[in-house]
């Protein structure tokens, strides 16, 4: 039996800044995971990843990450992805230090 599909988001790092970004339903890249499109099936996930790969002028290393539906949008399900939404734990640098512009 195939493994059940777990919901995904498309994520990458921005080419110029290097910071983590997530792909929204309208095809933009947002620094806020909650703005991302939560993908519910494997076929769409594959298609969105291909679309992201075509945006090499904007982002680097796009991949599919597990996420779960939350009250305000997708939330991380793994600690690595949670860290990517915040920044390092030893300094208040990265996203945790920057007020998120809402896409």
């Amino acid at each position: 039996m195939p493994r059940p599909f777990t919901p995904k988001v498309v994520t990458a790092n921005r080419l110029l800044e290097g910071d983590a970004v997530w792909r929204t339903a309208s095809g933009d890249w947002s620094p806020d995971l909650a703005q991302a499109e939560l993908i519910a099936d494997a076929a769409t996930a594959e298609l969105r990843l291909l679309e992201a790969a075509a945006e090499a002028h904007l982002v680097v290393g796009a991949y599919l990450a597990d996420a779960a539906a939350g009250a305000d949008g997708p939330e991380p399900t793994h600690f690595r992805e949670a860290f990517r939404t915040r920044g390092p734990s030893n300094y208040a640098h990265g996203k945790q230090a920057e007020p998120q512009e809402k896409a």
Partner: protein
Amino acid sequence: MYHYNDFDDAFVRERVSQFRAQVERRISGALTEEEFKPLRLMNGLYLQLHAYMLRVAIPYGTLDSRKMRQLAYIAERWDKGYGHFTTRQNIQFNWPRLRDVPDILEALADVEMHAIQTSGNTIRNVTADHFAGAAADEIADPRPVAELLRQWSTDHPQFQFLPRKFKIAVSGSRNDRAVTRAHDIGLEIVERDGAIGYRVIVGGGLGRTPMIGKVLREFLPQEDLLAYVEAVVSTWNLLGRRDNKFKSRIKITVHEHGIEDISRLVEAEFAQTRPGFAGADRAMLARIEAAFAPPAFVAKSPAPHAAARASDPVYRAWADTNLTAHRQPDHAIVTVSLKAHGATPGDASADQMRLLADLAERYAYDELRISHEQNVILPHVARADLPAIHAALTQAGLATANVGLVSDIIACPGMDYCSLATARSIPIAQQIATRFEELKVEHDVGPLKIKISGCINACGHHHVGHIGILGLDRAGVENYQVTLGGDHTETAAIGERAGPGFSADEIIPAIERLVLGYLDLREGRDETFLQAYRRLGPAPFKALLYPEARSDAA
């Protein structure tokens, strides 16, 4: 201090302008990421979890005040005001933007620095004992040889596409502070009948398959060095496995073929390479050695040091912990701890870098070193000047008296920065240091090396820590595995896994039980943790880590 010649300078500048053009072509879309990635890695530029990271080589860990000030300037102008010194005697900047990197490389070239061959399947930054040229126990300064190897390997046409990366370390003393036995090639300067030569150790390495290097040649005459090293690298270049990157390092080649076979092949290759070197490398070494001539040491009465030591217990604790014997009895080697309790191991702010540069210029013949243990060294200081240095360091939060103790922890960047990490390492180091500071026992505990890596790649050297901690991902939760009995010195050993891993909450109390428990196990203050472990074996230490298991068995 060794200075670039015109050729070096032109070469580095040329690389910077090439990279500037490559960055522009990447941004314009003329280069794909697949094309650009190997180019940026060749220039030390990685993409991490939250940003790019630039890794800058500090050959054999040696800096002067001008270079250190430039690092401070780069940290402030293009990063977030600090840099991270690593176990590979590099500095890493964690927040550069892609567009700024060519300017940063230009600023580095201005002070004869670069980020070339800090990555890729090349011969990497050659590392050396951080007390080189200063230590009382030294046979010869290892840096001229490290520099000779750097010049020979930089852009060596045969060695740009090796099966994998290749790391060389050089020690000039019987007391191995350069971890030579965990490098692809470790060179130990030795003396035989008054002649200088090298003990050549091959096939050490950490990572997924940790191995202690084996002796390939007990005594290699000085004049044969480059020909012999070239023979070793060539032999491996042919034999080394390119089909599987986990089996490509020379340690696996040595393991699979056996040291006798490798030795035979290397000697045969050496017979071929040797005539090609006809002495030109010796002339080069002589020139380089002149550039590493020791400074003209100024004789001063050490009385101020003795007086401060007698009257000030804070000074005494620092002096007894952070100083090492210098070849000049009226001088000392100062290790400046970048491990303030609760701070990130190896990080220095731009202000701290500038203070260190000032101190080096004023008191230390303008020399600084970076140790693989992520500390900064003032290698030559008149004992008379130590109290003034201690006072200045105290002002800057750099006078922590913990070198070689529990809180002098090596930690890799782990999942706070590194995209390969399986768990964080920095917070574990911070919490252990903070806890032992609360307990006020670290001076009583004495010499102890805790080393932490955030994944199996072992950048934090956990395998050779007396206590090693490896961060893993166990079913989506950070989990920490403990190894015991590792040793990074001339008596090198790979630590043994103690048992099941600990959660992030459990690991600090577990380390506390282990270290405090050792105090009851040792025969006296003179028996270090490692000695006690070697005498008693793992059982009593495992019992400290896993008290439940013991009560179950009872």
